[in-house]
């Protein structure tokens, strides 16, 4: 077997190409270079041309395509091609390939500044449409919630209890650990700064107010958004991909009532409880640092705490919890229902769900801070 390639010979004014070897995919890299040279020389070739394909041992469709390109290049130049020697059993394949049509080039992308502007416009439009549908889903959920209040029979209690366990009890360890650490960090940083003023006892005030009003609820909401909000989107999204939502609709079950309602209620109940727990752990973290680093003893800490904390600090924090729970569950269910038929969109929507619910929670929290400071609570 000779090696795959093309040999050029000149007989008088005539150019002869002798093709040899395997014209198959495994030899394609070599053949491409040789065929490229031959095709490039097409323009400068004058006089008749002979292609002798008798040396071709094996031919597959990729090799045949390269072959047809060579012949095509010369024919385009108007050179007459005498073409012979192709083995009988290669003939049908070659003819088959020759007839196949070329594929159009990929559409050119708009580049540069125009593309940026176009992308901005698209995003804004998408965002506006997205906001509108979100508000309509909010309305739908509120109506369903109201119906459930009037007719408690509508609430699926098994599902509610299941989600309470998953979002509430199962998240206790992580919520406890992280809020304890936040308490530690606050006491450490605050203590160091206040020591310079000789006011390290006020560290207790700092930790207590920060944890009770803001940090306890924020940390809990962020953990739950990442843990339960994402799970809601993934669960509902997978059901959407499996056409379970369509099945519900054909049977006459309302997906908002069956899927969204128990999840929304579960988070509205579990988030305040988790927040209360987070508050306790945050204060405990502060106490540990106050005792070990700031040389306070436990009675001192408790006294300072009872002086610093008023009931309204605690209420301001915990009052936000049901609302944040509502928002997280709402976004989770909404993004889950927006999953299209493909599995990859489950992943995309889950990411969106977490980002959106955390962003909404923090934005709402800011509104609350401003509001409470105006009314002076």
């Amino acid at each position, binding site marked *: 077997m000779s090696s795959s390639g093309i040999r050029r010979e000149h007989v008088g004014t005539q150019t002869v190409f002798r093709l040899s070897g395997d014209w*198959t*995919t*495994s030899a*394609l*890299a070599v053949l*491409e270079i040789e065929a490229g040279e031959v095709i490039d020389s097409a323009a400068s070739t004058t006089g008749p041309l002979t292609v002798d394909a008798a040396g071709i041992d094996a031919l*597959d*469709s*990729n*090799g045949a*395509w*390269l072959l047809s*390109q060579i012949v095509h290049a010369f024919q385009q130049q108007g050179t007459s091609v005498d073409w012979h020697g192709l083995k009988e059993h290669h003939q*049908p*394949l070659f003819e*088959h*390939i020759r007839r*196949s*049509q*070329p*594929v*159009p080039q*990929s*559409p050119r992308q708009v580049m540069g500044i125009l593309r940026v502007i176009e992308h901005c416009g698209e995003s804004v439009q998408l965002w506006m449409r997205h906001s509108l549908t979100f508000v309509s889903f909010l309305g739908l959920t509120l109506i369903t919630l109201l119906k459930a209040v009037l007719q408690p029979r509508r609430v699926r209690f098994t599902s509610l209890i299941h989600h309470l366990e998953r979002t509430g009890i199962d998240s206790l360890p992580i919520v406890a650990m992280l809020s304890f650490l936040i308490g530690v960090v606050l006491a450490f940083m605050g203590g160091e700064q206040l020591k310079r003023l000789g006011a390290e006892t006020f560290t207790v005030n700092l930790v207590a107010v920060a944890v009770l009003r803001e940090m306890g609820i924020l940390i809990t909401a962020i953990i739950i958004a990442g843990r339960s909000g994402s799970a809601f989107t993934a669960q509902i999204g997978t059901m959407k991909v499996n056409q379970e939502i369509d099945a519900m609709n054909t049977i006459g079950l309302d997906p908002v009532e069956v899927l969204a309602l128990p999840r929304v209620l579960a988070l509205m109940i579990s988030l305040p409880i988790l927040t209360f727990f987070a508050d306790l752990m945050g204060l405990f973290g502060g106490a540990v640092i106050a005792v070990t680093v700031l040389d306070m003893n436990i009675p001192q800490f408790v006294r300072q705490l009872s002086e610093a904390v008023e009931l309204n600090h605690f209420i301001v924090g915990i009052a936000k919890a049901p609302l944040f729970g509502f928002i997280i569950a709402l976004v989770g269910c909404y993004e889950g229902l927006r999953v299209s038929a*493909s599995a*990859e969109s489950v992943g995309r929507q889950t990411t969106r769900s977490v980002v959106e619910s955390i962003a909404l929670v923090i934005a709402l929290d800011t509104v609350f801070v401003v509001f409470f400071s105006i009314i002076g609570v």
Partner: protein
Amino acid sequence: MKHVIEVRGLETRFGNHVIHDRLNLTARRGEIMGIVGGSGTGKSVLLWTILGLRKPDAGKVSILGFDIDPDDPAAAEAVQAHTGMLFQDGALFSSLTVMQNIMVPLQRHTRISKGLSENIAGLKLSMVGLDPSAAHKLPSELSGGMRKRASLARALALDPEILFLDEPTAGLDPIGAAEFDHLILDLQRSLGLTVVMITHDLDSLFAITDRISVLIHKGLVTGTIPELLALEDPWIKQYFSGPRARAVETAKMHTESDDLKQLD
């Protein structure tokens, strides 16, 4: 090398559950072989084992003279370059366009330029009868039948010697399924492929397969349909002589006699 695929004494177990027990299979060069069997008899597992996606619990698989062993990268590489697989739902890479999908095996196994691999991808598209406008679409923008064709184009990218098909006509309408059968037969003839296909489509089995392997009693029985029927096995008999099979056969006899009339 007469047999392009040779499976000897294959055993497959899931825990204590034996799926294949001393299973033998040989596929001859240039034939279309159908694999049939009831649900849970391990048709897909057999295909995965042949492709080297699963290590056999016992026995030997060789393709084109190479022994298949998932732990031997060199043999795996050689087999990958000479086989193509059409998965049931296409299994096209969802983030790539159809054309990019077809270019993946070319870029992995050859060292040709991007321009040439684009051209070859275009050639494969036209070979499987896909409209050129589909080339730059994402798989999610295609219909089920088009996805199958695109996936077939990817399986053919390297001009494989063996083509594996997992339920190629499942999910296609009868017209689409018949077209797909024709396409496979056409490609098999012009490219000289060996085709191994799992299928439940009796039309396909009667229309294009040369031999059929039946997974039964944890082993394989191979033969043409009359040979299989002569075995007097109740399951095989029911499979090929059930009401659905009879309908296919009568229809086929009708078209054949029509063809004869036209010849006259």
